[in-house]
């Protein structure tokens, strides 16, 4: 356990009240940022993307599935992967049970990846998820959003020292480092209005943390995330904890 102060309930309450004021400020700022997200201009998606789905080939408009809003999680599962990225898998653990609540708010939530559909569906079954997962197969959808990198673009990264966590994740996906980092994670949002699909929001990196439920919870525990200085990533697929 880390070094910590021990106090009386009264001391705790005083410190907690002060923190609460700051927490409320942060919540209000969060509301403002959500508003600013909704105020971004909508960009018509003019390219015709096609997706392989369980129900055959579909367009981006089809993926709305009768709703007016679409959220797509770009799950790192490239053509060379044998299993999905463990971090994306932890995100999918958060997304999956939330899809039903989002549907009640006119939002369809799906995942998309570049691996062939049969690989995605087999992995989905292993993990016990039920969200729709589509394959971009040969389309440039992920590339156009900035979530696919070529080996040429990755050269500076690949020639440097590869962080051990990246090697670990590549290995967990039974691919090599180039194959692993060719894919990038992301979340993108769309609106369907009068038959036109608009891109409204895209995020990546720590912008994905709202979909990593455990981080917000760890931020409220005595030890927090305590990831600093760790050589390997602590995260495992939910069916791999306890395995050596």
């Amino acid at each position, binding site marked *: 356990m880390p070094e910590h102060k021990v106090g009386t309930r009264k*001391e705790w309450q005083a410190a907690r009240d002060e923190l609460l004021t700051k927490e409320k400020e942060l919540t209000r700022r969060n509301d403002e940022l959500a508003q600013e997200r909704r*105020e*971004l201009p909508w960009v018509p998606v003019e390219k015709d993307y096609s997706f392989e789905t369980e129900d055959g080939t579909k367009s981006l408009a089809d993926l709305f599935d009768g709703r007016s809003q679409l959220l797509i999680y770009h799950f790192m599962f490239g053509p060379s992967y044998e299993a999905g990225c463990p971090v994306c898998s932890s995100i999918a653990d958060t997304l999956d049970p939330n899809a039903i609540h989002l549907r009640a708010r006119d939002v369809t939530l799906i995942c998309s990846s570049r691996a062939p559909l049969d690989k995605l569906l087999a992995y989905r079954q292993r993990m016990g998820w039920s969200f729709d997962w589509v394959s971009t197969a040969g389309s440039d959808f992920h590339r156009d959003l900035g979530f696919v990198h070529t080996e040429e673009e990755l050269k500076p990264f690949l020639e440097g020292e590869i962080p051990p966590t990246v090697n670990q994740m590549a290995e967990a996906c039974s691919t090599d480092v180039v194959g692993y980092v060719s894919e990038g994670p992301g979340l993108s949002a769309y609106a369907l209005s009068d038959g036109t699909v608009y891109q409204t929001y895209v995020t990546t990196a720590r912008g994905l943390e709202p979909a990593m439920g455990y981080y917000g919870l760890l931020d409220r525990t*005595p030890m927090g995330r305590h990831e600093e200085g760790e050589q390997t990533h602590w995260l495992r697929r939910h069916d791999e904890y306890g395995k050596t």
Partner: protein
Amino acid sequence: MTSTGRPELPPGLLHTERRSETTHTVGTREEWLAARKELLEAEKEHMRRGDELARWRQELPWVPVEKEYVFETADGRKQGPGVRS
């Protein structure tokens, strides 16, 4: 936390999110990207502030729980470590 005499309702019940009606504009990819970049800076700043508050939480004093609470669990009755037999 101390009781204020007001019930603590689950978030959302009072529709506390301050939302003004959004009329969206349609823009080009370049316009979107410029606005998105500006928002990204604000999002990063907000993220860092969130990190600061997480650290602040970890710095709260720890308060020893001196009362012995008893719980019924799937594995039978459990109580504080002080009286564990």
